[in-house]
């Protein structure tokens, strides 16, 4: 845990003016990425982000400085999003993902003109749609790894998943996106 984190936590606990607002500003992007990627509904995600920071404020005294503040807040956001999905009875992972991934790996062809594909805006839009069709957990893991550039160990601290499980999810979802990219190119004019 960094010295800056420690100072910020002490300032919030001492009710220093503006300290909590600074804490929220520093970590709101990560919180948004976790929750919005899992929940997808913008209004729900905004409410859950607010709920996350209210919980952070409420339980900050329980933070033991054992992990980075970012990971601790990320963990709270992840738990909040997970509970929301459970309440809505939305599955966070696809049950037959492993078999599907192996099939995709075996059936993948090489006849793909990437230059032509890159010229198309339609393809980029299609890829974003493909990302949206991934199960909530995989969408979130991809975002943390690629957009937030968190290490697999940091993601493990946030989600509580084993590093091997995270790697497996990343592998399968990237493979699936690659396959969908090729399918899209085949369907485009």
């Amino acid at each position, binding site marked *: 845990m960094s010295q800056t984190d420690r100072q910020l936590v002490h300032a919030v606990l001492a009710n220093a003016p*503006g300290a909590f*607002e600074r804490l929220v500003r520093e970590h709101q*992007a990560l919180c948004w990425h976790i929750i919005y990627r899992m929940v997808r509904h913008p209004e729900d995600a905004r409410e859950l982000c607010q709920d996350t*920071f209210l919980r952070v404020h409420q339980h900050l005294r329980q933070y033991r400085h054992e992990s980075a503040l970012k990971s601790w807040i990320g963990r709270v956001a992840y738990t909040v999003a997970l509970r929301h999905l459970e309440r809505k009875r939305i599955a966070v992972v696809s049950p037959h993902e492993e078999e599907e991934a192996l099939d995709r790996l075996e059936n993948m062809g090489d006849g793909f003109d990437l230059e032509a594909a890159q010229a198309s805006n339609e393809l*980029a839009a299609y*890829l*974003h749609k493909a*990302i949206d069709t991934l199960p909530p957990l995989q969408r979130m893991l991809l975002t943390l790894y690629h957009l937030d550039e968190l290490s697999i160990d940091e993601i493990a601290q946030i989600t509580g998943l084993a590093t091997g499980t995270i*790697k497996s999810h990343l592998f399968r979802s990237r493979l699936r*996106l690659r396959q969908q990219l090729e399918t899209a190119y085949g369907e485009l004019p």
Partner: protein
Amino acid sequence: MNHEPHDDAKEREWALQEQAFKAERLVLGAADNTKLERYRTVMRALRQPMDDELAPDFAHNVAASVMQCDDMKLELYASWALLAVLAMMLLGVLVRYSAVWMRLASNPWLVALAACVALSGLLGKLWPEHAASRG
């Protein structure tokens, strides 16, 4: 993919994915590897900012809500304190007029009346729908 080291095809695919990720992070030029370039297209899409973001005043609003919650907590504590004072006063009244209560309790008709009122109230709580249909 170190959790399944026996699967060479998966290991190679994972290495390729990671190579594409690093190439995109370092903004390297295009490689002469079709498969790698496919993955780079995927990685590029994954690194793009999201279509929706939190409002710029989000942090300010959350901090304001927390302050409001703190004020409400203070009100709640004050309410509990008032309730405790009320309970103490009630107990004081009970003790102060204990002789009167004892006199009332020695009257069997009054005890029977109190028992009836208590029993009907209890039955109403236990079977509210039955009590409502009767009413």
